Each structure stands twice: as C-alpha cells, then as structure tokens.
C-alpha cells in the first residue's frame, strides 16, 4: 500500500494533528472491539508465492477444456472469441465503478450497444442492463407482470430448471406475505416435451398475472405452441413472458414474433466463459411502452443529446424508480450486477452479425441432432424427446439397467463429462440425463461419446 511507508503516515498524522492512527478509531467503544488479533493464514506478500498457492488449488479442478463435456442446463460451453476476453479485461472496463455520462462515455456506449444488439436479436425495443441470472430476470418479470395486472398468480411449465424455479419461488414470496404470487405448474406431453395446453387453459383465470414459458425449454425442446400460449394468456388478460437462450435466435423465431410481452433469458452464451457458473447473467426486454418501462427494476441506458449540437451521449433513464431512487418504494431492487459481461456480450454480438448467429445456430442444431441420433443407436440408450430440440436433449439409460450416476462416473474415467443427471429433479424420466451439444463439439467428439457409452453400457 502506497502509504504504508512510515514517513508518509507520520506526515499525515502531523497534518491532522492526531497522536496516532489508533486514536482515529476513538468512535468505537472499547467493549465493541475485537479482543484478540485476527487469526488468518499467514500473508503471502510476494506475488510469486501467492500465484503458486492459488494455482496449486485451481489445478485441483478438472475442466471442460481438458475433458470433453456435454453439460448444459443453464450454463453452456460455447466458443468465446478471444477479443471478448481482451476487451472485458481492459483495465479501463474492468476496474471502474461509476462516473459521469462524459467520463463513462465509452462504457455507456458499450452498454447501449449491448441493449441495442440484443434488442435486434429479440425484436424488442427496451432491453435493460443485465440482472444476475436468467432466474432473477424471470422473477423480476413475473413481479412486473403482477404489478401491471394487479394479479397474483403465475403459471410456469413443469419442465423448468429446478434452480431457476427455486429462484422464481423466492421472488414470488411465500403465501404468508401480502404480495405473494402463487406459482402454478403445467405439465407436458410425455412424448414430445411440449406444453399441455389443456392444462394451461384450465389453470388460466382472471387471477393469472402472467404465463411464463421457455423455448427451447429446460429439456431442450422448442415450444411449437408458443403462439397459442400467447393467445390464451392474452385472452385471460395475463402478460406473456418468454424465457429464451439468445444464441438460438439466429435460426429460431424471436419470442416477440409469437406474442411475448416480456422476454427474459441468459446472457452467458454470448461470449462469456462458464466460470463455474460465474458467467451467468440475465436480461429483461419488452416493447417500448411506457407501462412496461415504468416497471423495470434494472438500470436502463438511453441515448440522448448533449448540450453540443449533433452530439450524443448515453445516460440512465428512469433511475428514480429504482431502489437507488426510491428505496422501498422502488421497483424491486437493483445493485451491482454483471455489467462487465454486458460488454463481452456487446463485443460478441458485433462479431457475430446476422450470419454468425445463423451459422452457429445451424451448426448447433445439426450437431445436437446428430448426437441424439448416434446415441440412440447405442444399446440401452433412449432419447426421450427425439425431435424438435435445439442444443439439448434428454438421454434415458433405463433400458441399460444402469444409473446416470454410474454412467457418468465411467465417462469421467474416460475424460468425458456426461449430461446433467435429471433423475432427482424429474423422476418421471427415470434414469435420464440432459446432454448439451454446441459448436465447440466436433463430430469426432460426438462419436467418441457414443463409442464410450457403447463400451460402458455393454459391460
């Protein structure tokens, strides 16, 4: 620390006329003080020692670069272009907190480019700065819908990430709370993974604030009835909220096209490493209608003129409705989120362009279907929803007599991370796992997986 130098400390003490540093803590009563020294591991003051210590710990991880991974389920291994890391790692973007619209101009512009490009992918005119995660975005969107409709029930699909659902339930508050939003679930067709529309229709009512669905859903299936869901929801006076993986939108229709009012989703696939889940981020988007705009909890960056003719800058809109502006009267709350990743996302989207999103979408969907096909040929393996998916699909091992746990252990021994085990969260699917295939996989990776599974299951 620059001022650790004793002479500097003394200069400062002399300047202020304090007898000692200790004296400066006079406000803290004696009986509030910690009575002993902190017992922490010894300092590693040299960078070389610290580096070595940390690296030795990190090396105890296995990673998806050394191993071949088919894990997905809300966090995916997509290719991260090198310049995403380069830009997000620039000291200028990495280290600041908050300045003025002029001193933060570059960063604010990058944020605006995040919202603008994501808006194009989504066909939506309002995109907020990211929130913590997809689940948090969904939770906020449901609360927005509840405020917009003054209703207190949300309908969600049974096929949903249990973690995300848990987040949503927390945002919906327990039933003892006055603003509690009841969460109703609707089932799915066992052969296709599509929503049970009859059940939806039965559960929709004048109490329904929102219908929330996802496409592709948590088990990978593209929801072909989304337009009908929208019509049903709107007929009931409910908001229609759709969760989406934006990397699918080069080839899949944006939810606005089939009637979504609010769109949420993840930002991680757009140029952010998995980071053991630390790459997670969520977005909220909607049409540019004042009723929606005035319910956003997140920060909103807008382009605006400066005092200089023909010059633009970027500033925060509607800050007053945030918790910063209105404390407990604000819309939910906001705070530090994952704004650095928004810059990575902006870089990613400008590298991709329309063609990049098309190419990556096509490659993913083809490879995922190829994987499903070759796995289906492995004795003992079934594909639960064999068509209509994007990058993920469910693999059932019941016929093999083996558990997912056993299969995955055997795969790990071969340097492969098998799909995420669904047996606890979706017991109806038996011994099933969620496999994700993306553009980082090659055909030979998939063939290797199939061969390994064939070997493992034949034992």
């Amino acid at each position, binding site marked *: 620390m620059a001022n*650790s130098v004793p002479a500097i400390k003394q200069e400062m003490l002399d300047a202020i006329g304090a007898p000692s540093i200790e004296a400066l803590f006079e406000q803290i009563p004696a009986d509030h003080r910690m009575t002993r020294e902190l017992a922490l591991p010894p300092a590693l003051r040299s960078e070389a020692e610290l580096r070595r210590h940390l690296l030795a710990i990190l090396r105890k991880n296995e990673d998806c670069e050394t191993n071949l991974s088919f894990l997905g389920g809300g*966090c995916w291994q997509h290719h991260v272009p090198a310049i995403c890391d380069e830009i997000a790692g620039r000291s200028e*973007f*990495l280290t600041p907190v908050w300045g003025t619209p002029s001193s933060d101009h570059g*960063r604010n512009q990058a944020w605006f*480019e995040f919202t603008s490009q994501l808006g194009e992918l989504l066909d939506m005119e309002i995109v907020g700065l990211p929130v*913590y995660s997809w689940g948090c975005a969904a939770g906020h969107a449901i609360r927005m819908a509840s405020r917009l409709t003054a209703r207190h029930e949300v309908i969600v699909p049974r096929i949903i990430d249990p973690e995300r659902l848990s987040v949503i339930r927390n945002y919906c508050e327990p039933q003892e709370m006055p603003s509690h939003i009841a969460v109703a679930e609707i089932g799915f067709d066992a052969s296709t993974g599509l929503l049970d529309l009859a059940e939806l229709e039965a559960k929709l009512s004048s109490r329904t604030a929102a219908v929330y669905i996802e496409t592709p859903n948590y088990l990978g299936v593209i929801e072909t009835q989304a337009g009908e869901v929208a019509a049903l929801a709107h007929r009931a006076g409910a908001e229609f909220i759709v969760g989406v993986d934006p990397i699918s939108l080069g080839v899949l229709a944006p939810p606005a096209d089939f009637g979504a009012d609010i769109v949420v989703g993840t930002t991680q696939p757009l140029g952010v490493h998995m980071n053991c889940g630390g790459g997670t981020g969520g977005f909220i988007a909607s049409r540019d209608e004042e009723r929606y705009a005035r319910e956003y909890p997140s920060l909103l960056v807008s382009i605006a003129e400066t005092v200089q003719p023909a010059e633009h*800058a970027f500033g925060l809109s509607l800050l007053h409705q945030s918790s910063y502006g209105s404390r407990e009267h604000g819309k939910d709350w906001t705070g530090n989120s994952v704004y650095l990743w928004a810059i990575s996302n902006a870089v990613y989207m400008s590298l991709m362009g329309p063609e990049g999103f098309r*190419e990556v979408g096509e490659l993913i969907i083809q490879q995922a*279907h190829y994987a499903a096909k070759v796995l289906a040929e492995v004795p003992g393996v079934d594909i639960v929803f064999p068509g209509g998916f994007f990058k993920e699909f469910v693999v059932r091992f019941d016929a093999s007599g083996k558990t997912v746990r056993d299969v995955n252990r055997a795969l790990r021994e071969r340097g492969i991370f098998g799909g995420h085990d669904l047996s606890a969260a979706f017991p109806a699917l038996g011994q099933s796992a969620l496999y994700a295939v993306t553009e980082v996989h090659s055909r030979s990776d998939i063939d290797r997986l199939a061969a390994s599974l064939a070997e493992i299951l034949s034992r």
Partner: protein
Amino acid sequence: WDEPVVMEMGRRGRRGIMFPSADQAVTAAVGCAETLIPEGMRRPTPPALPEMSEPDVLRHYLHLSQQTLGMMGISLFGTCTMKYNARLNEALAARPELAEVHPLQNEETLQGVLEIIHRFDLALRELSGMDQFVFQPAGGADAAYTHACVTRAWLASRGELGKRDEIVTSLQAHPCNPATAATAGFKVITLPLEEDGYPSLDALKAAVSDRTAALMINNPDDMGIYNPHIKEWVRVVHEAGGLCFYDHANFNGVMSRLRARELGFDACMYMLHKTFGAPKGGGGPAVGAYGCSAELAPFLPKPVVTFDGKSYHLDNDRDDSIGKVREFLGNIPVVLKAYAWVRSLGAEGIREAADLSVLANNYMDHELLKLRGVSRSHPDIDAWRMEMTRFSLGKLFEDTGVSAMDVQNRMVDYGIDAFWLSHEPWIVPQPFTPEAGEMWSKEDLDTWIAVLAAVIEEAYADPDMVRSAPHNQAVHQIKGAPLEDPAHWAMTWRAYLRKRAQGQS
C-alpha cells in the same frame, strides 16, 4: 475518437467470426438445419446486427475503452471502496482451470473451486465471528435480499411468518436494505437520524414490537459515524424477537477491530467486489458474501460447501434452505480474487488497510474543510471520522449556483472521475462523499484535493464555465430531460431510429 454507435458500422456481407459447416457425416445423418426446426419456429428475417470484420470490432471497443476514465485517473468513489485489483488475480481467474469449469460438474472435479470457497468461508468467519458463509448472492443488494429470504424462512420455522412482517432500518442504511426487505414482502420502518448522526435508541425501542422481523443496518454508515449504541440496539431487537443483519458495506475502516457476531448480529454481508479487492467491472460480476450464525445456517441458500478433512462436498441435502437466490454456486472468480486479496495481506495487512483508510479519510477531511464552500455533516461531532465523511457543497451552491454534480462534471476534466454524492435521501444539501481507501497514495489524495480546490475557485470566478462542464471529455454534458420522456428515451438503437423518424415526420 469520434466513435459511431456500432449499429451504424460495418457493411453488408462482412464477417467478424465464422463457424464451420457441419461435418458431411452430420449433414448426411440429420439433413440441413432448416428441416430440424419445427414449422413456424424459424426466424423469418435475420436480426439487423452490424456486419463487421474482427479488427474493426476490436478497434471499436478499444476506442470505447479509452473513452472510459474510471481508475485510469483518480477515483475516490465513496461507499464503493475503490481498490487496486491485482492483475495476478485476473490472470489466474482467466485460466481454463476456472474459466472452463461447468458448475454442474461432479464435485470430485470441482475440488479446487470448493477449496477456495471453503478457505474463504473460514477467513470470513474469522473476520466476522459468524458460523457459515455462502457466496451465491451476486451483489451486496442480493445479500441483503438473501437476508430477507432467510428471515422469512426463520420466521416460518417458528410459525411467525406473516405475523412478524416489519423490518426496521435507518435513513442512512443503504437503499438496498429497505428495497430488498420490501421485495421480500416486508413492511419497512425507517428510523430518522438524530443530531449525533444515528437514530436514537428510543426511536428504535418505539419501532420494535412483536411484528418486528429484523433490523437491517450499516455501521459505521457512509458519513463515517459509528453508532456506539449498536450492541444495545441488537439487544433491543433480539428481545423483541427479531433478527439483526449487519450490512458491512463500510467494513473497510473497521476490519480487524470489530466482529459482527461479537456485537450480537445474527448475519452480515461483505461486498467482495469492493472491500475485498475484486474489480468492480463497472458494476459486477459481484458477490455479496452472506454469513450468519449457526441458528440461521440451516436456512441458507444451498448448496453449502463442506469439508470432511479430506475432500470438499456440496451439501444440497438441506430441508430448511431457502433454495436459490440465483442459479449455481455464485460468482466464483470473484471469490477467488477476494481470497487472493486476503491471502496477500494476512491479518496484519488487513489491519494496515483499515488503518490507512481511516488515516487517509481524516487527512482528506482535514484538508477539504479548509476549502471555501465545503462543510461536513454533523459538524458538532468532532470525533475523527471513520473511513468516509459526508461533505456538503451547499454553501458553494448558495454562493455560485454550482451544484455538486457540476463539480463532478468539472473534475473529470482534470482526470478525476466522479465522487459519490449520497444515497437517497440526502441528509445535507449538495452532498459529496469521497472515500480515500488504502490504495491511493498521499500524492494522489493531494492531487484530488487540489483539483477540488481549483474547481471551487473556478466556480466562484466563472460559475457558468463549471456548470457547462465537462469541456475536454469525449462528449459534453448530456441533456437530462429526454431520458425521462417516453417520446424521447431510447434504450436501444431501434427505438432511437423509430423515434427519430417519428420526430422528423
């Protein structure tokens, strides 16, 4: 750089990054992509994204980075404890051993991650006296929200949920406390401040009742004033049957000198992206480390990392857990960086950091109060302030019409990024709250003081010049009114294009 918005850049057909076509065997097996997409779910028109070459994308964002002042100059952004973010930590966090780890990997393959979590948990337990920490909350506010959720679960376990429906806080507590309490469904009672800088014990006693769920409070607050009755406060709330949550946003000045649990608090939170040296990233990725007593630990979000003396485990088998406040384990790279910060300092270094930040603030305080038009909150309290002081430019504003925001705008012309004003509501007129912290050298502090002095002189000599600042930044002062006007705000380029076209038609 006179840098266009990226949406205006590029040319049709230009490519930034490409992907291979699927292997022939893949296409042979499954056909082309269109046939795999269900009818009606294909995107009808491509998104109107820019079409750029890779070098142009890089150069564009390099330009934007250079137009971001932040820590390139001197930034004493109060309450955010601007620290040095060691590049070593960035280099390590970027390694595939962390960056390419999937959160759903089998725990056997996550031993490094879990060890970091556990080791850092132990360090925070030592710093706070709490019994268990989790790092799932993705920011300080999220940790406050977590506390509100934990409070609900605790109340439910005692059959008091719905009965105890009030959370008490103070006017000077960070807005995230009342806001997250309200979002979680609680009523918020906000205690006003007295002349000594904190609410009176009597006010607290009047506020608590059998409806009290919890107290959520900062101490010291961001005025640098320490509430010496805090132990009594905790006792009062506990006696009323509520929990006490310590928002440790202002931990920097008290590190090593007091521990939340020893003061009686049931839970606390630290901002790893501030106090613990991880970079802010302009607002995250962040972590609000949430720690609590053994009594509250069963309600923590899951999973919790455990250590059996040999290996680390993810404990998901926690029936009373509130579940998740955010998917996955938390922003692990931030935890790594915070752990690195603790290890680089050790106990002595942490104490030194607290010492230096309080020394520096009092030095700033002493020098700033010499300046014309500058005063501080609670002038009657002549005790040394903690690591921050709330100042006021009210006199300057009265004399010249130059506001604190005008001064901010002018200071950036000198390479000094905005100071923090104050959270809502303002206690003093035209507030400003610099936080010196332990990183900045005395030379930097002197520069900061000298720049403020210069701007104040300018304000008295030529207020219009200061009010129209900045004058040598990438762009001039933004007009505020359109940002609040539905006809003009434009949160995306497509909204801007539409409104511009409408305005012209």
